[in-house]
């Protein structure tokens, strides 16, 4: 058995998780007792549009954290930023993030993965003209045979290659892909590709796995088994951060939820309570979602002024916040 399946986690016990989650502060950017990922002041602008502007976020080790938010909230951009696939606009201007105590401010995507934070993609990136097993074996780290000079000598990497293949077989069996081992990845269905990508990410024994919409385009039956896999990962001691749109999924498996809207972190909380947070409801439905637009009373000048004042107050608050951040 590979290493990560032996190490069990205190967080495998649901009661321990509930107890832990109960002690966490449910405010956006709250500090956690044992954060594996700490993100500070990450801003990404595309032209004039600010896609991501996260002041502070900590991800607790050993639990499943969901990152949710309406379309265009900047979740995937945020993922790209912290995994090194994109550079924050605020780089060198106070953008910091560290993973497991290691600073990642200026590192490339490959060294982020080597540090133990492996991601999957929203649009799966199965290497379609390679077989499933080749896909898997690419995921293993520190392969002697990937060195140009050692690669020519079969004896140098044969033993390691066998180990890697055994590990890949084990993971494929777990993800029910073993019978597809020698098929080309391009011949798999969309859901199977998601599974393959997740299994491939696990080949590197990550400390934290980041799943970008793992359930998108997967049929309900497969969703169930994918959810089971994700929970097993947590029970084995891995930290999971995932982006998801399906609220049932989020409620079902996540221990903690962070909510993004318009690039900002607007709320955090336990999965069952965060949905009733007014900030979350505002983000998804709009601040005036329960106002009847057909109501003529709204057309009066006072009502209009009231709304304008509200907007101005919101703006002022935002500005004050930014200034405060700037001073820090």
């Amino acid at each position, binding site marked *: 058995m590979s290493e990560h399946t032996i190490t069990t986690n205190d967080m495998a016990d649901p009661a321990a998780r509930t107890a832990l989650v109960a002690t966490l502060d449910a405010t956006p950017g709250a500090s956690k007792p044992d954060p594996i990922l700490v993100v500070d002041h990450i801003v990404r602008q595309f032209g004039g549009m600010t896609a991501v502007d996260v002041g502070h976020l900590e991800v607790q080790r050993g639990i499943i954290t969901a990152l949710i938010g309406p379309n265009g909230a900047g979740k995937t951009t945020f993922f790209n930023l912290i995994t090194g696939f994109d550079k924050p606009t605020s780089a060198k201007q106070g953008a910091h993030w560290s993973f497991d105590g290691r600073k990642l401010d200026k590192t*490339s995507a490959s060294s982020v993965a080597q540090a133990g934070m492996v991601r999957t*993609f929203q649009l799966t990136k199965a290497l379609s*003209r390679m077989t499933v097993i080749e896909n898997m074996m*690419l995921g293993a780290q520190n392969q002697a045979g990937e060195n140009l000079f050692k*690669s020519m000598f*079969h004896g140098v990497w044969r033993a390691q290659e066998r180990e890697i293949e055994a590990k890949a077989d084990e993971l494929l069996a777990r993800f029910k892909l073993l019978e597809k081992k020698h098929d080309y990845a*391009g011949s798999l269905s969309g859901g199977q590709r998601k599974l393959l990508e997740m299994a491939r990410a696990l080949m590197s024994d990550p400390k934290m796995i980041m799943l970008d919409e793992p359930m998108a385009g997967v049929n309900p039956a497969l969703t169930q088994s994918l959810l089971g896999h994700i929970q097993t990962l947590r029970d084995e001691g891995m930290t999971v951060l995932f982006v998801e749109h399906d609220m049932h999924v989020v409620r079902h498996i996540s221990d903690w939820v962070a909510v993004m809207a318009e690039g900002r972190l607007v709320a955090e909380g336990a999965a069952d309570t965060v949905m009733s947070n007014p900030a979350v409801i505002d983000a998804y439905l709009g601040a005036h979602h329960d106002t009847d637009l057909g109501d003529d009373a709204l057309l009066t000048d006072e009502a209009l002024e009231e709304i304008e004042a509200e907007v101005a107050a919101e703006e002022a608050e935002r500005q004050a916040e930014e200034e405060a951040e700037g001073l820090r």
Partner: protein
Amino acid sequence: MDTIQGILNGMMRETLSPQTAAVAIAVIGLNIHLGFTGLLNFGQAGFMLLGAYGMAISVWHGLPFAVGILFGLGAALIFALVLGVPTLKLRGDYLAIVTISAAEILRYVGRSSLLSDFTGAAQGIPGSQYRTPFTSLSFFGNGSFTLWPFNYLDVAGGAAWVRILGWIVLVALIVGLVYVLRGKAGLAGGAKVGAAVVLGVLAVLLVFFLFPVPNQSTGVNGWWVRFVAWTIVAICTFLVFLLVRSPWGRLLRGVREDEDAIRSLGKNVFSIKMQALIIGGLFGAIGGMIYVLPSSTQPDSMGRSLTFFCYTALLIGGAATIFGPVLGALIFFGCRIGIKYTASAYIPDSVMNAQQTEQFSYIVVGVALMLIVIFRPQGILGNKRELRFDV
């Protein structure tokens, strides 16, 4: 009958020539770029030219032959670094643009009359200036011989029935070889390889029996340079076999499929692409050295068209295969000269003169390339399954 024999003899001489071997080596390098890593290198002729210049200029100026080879390889290595550093982080098209222009820049610099003392400008460096240390290595002795000394002329005086029988047997051997290699003969593992080797060796022996090639033993363009060239082709092919079956080769194919996926698995994509560019470029440089050994180092002989001949040979043989580049080069040069000789033998001069048959042969090659890309995009040896999922 004698006309046909003459055409086939010509094809045989052409496929065996050191130029074909040189291009085969360059195509082996190009295969690492395009076939395995997906790098669009349109400047393989530039790598060849650098290898040739490195060797020719050093030897011409009195340096030892081995140092010349090292200079040629070093020049190609630096060229790969210069091309790769700015472009390999960008999308693939940029490498294509930069390589084709860099190869042209090299050619024009080589032609410049300011450098006559080094490159010999447009006239180039005559082979006699740098060939001697190579030919003096020869252990083939002087004189000349024909391969094989015992050939069809010795059986019944080379009668027509001997030749026709030989050709039929040759075709049968090749058909049998294809049959075995495609796994239709019901053989597997060692038996399959054994049968293929036996059939292949028999076919080669028979080819030399039917189309004997006379040449000088050493000389300017004799058996010695052919022997060295084809030995290097074999070594390069074996080297590529070792490289691509390893985890390193798997990494190359991963980069070809999706760079970002490989990056997300913690691999340094830039370094892998750079390694591939350098290795392929070094093969190109070796090819260039062999290319100029029997002739002269002329910048114009290694221009864009040579790069595209390399591409044609690669696509004919099959990209991302081990033997594809060699087979492609053999077929490309053999068939081109076959077309040329056939046209000049059977089309009257009033319709097409000797110069036009040369051009006609290139036209036919171009059309053949288009047909191959349309109807058999994986080439002769390529794996259709590997090409089917082109998402």
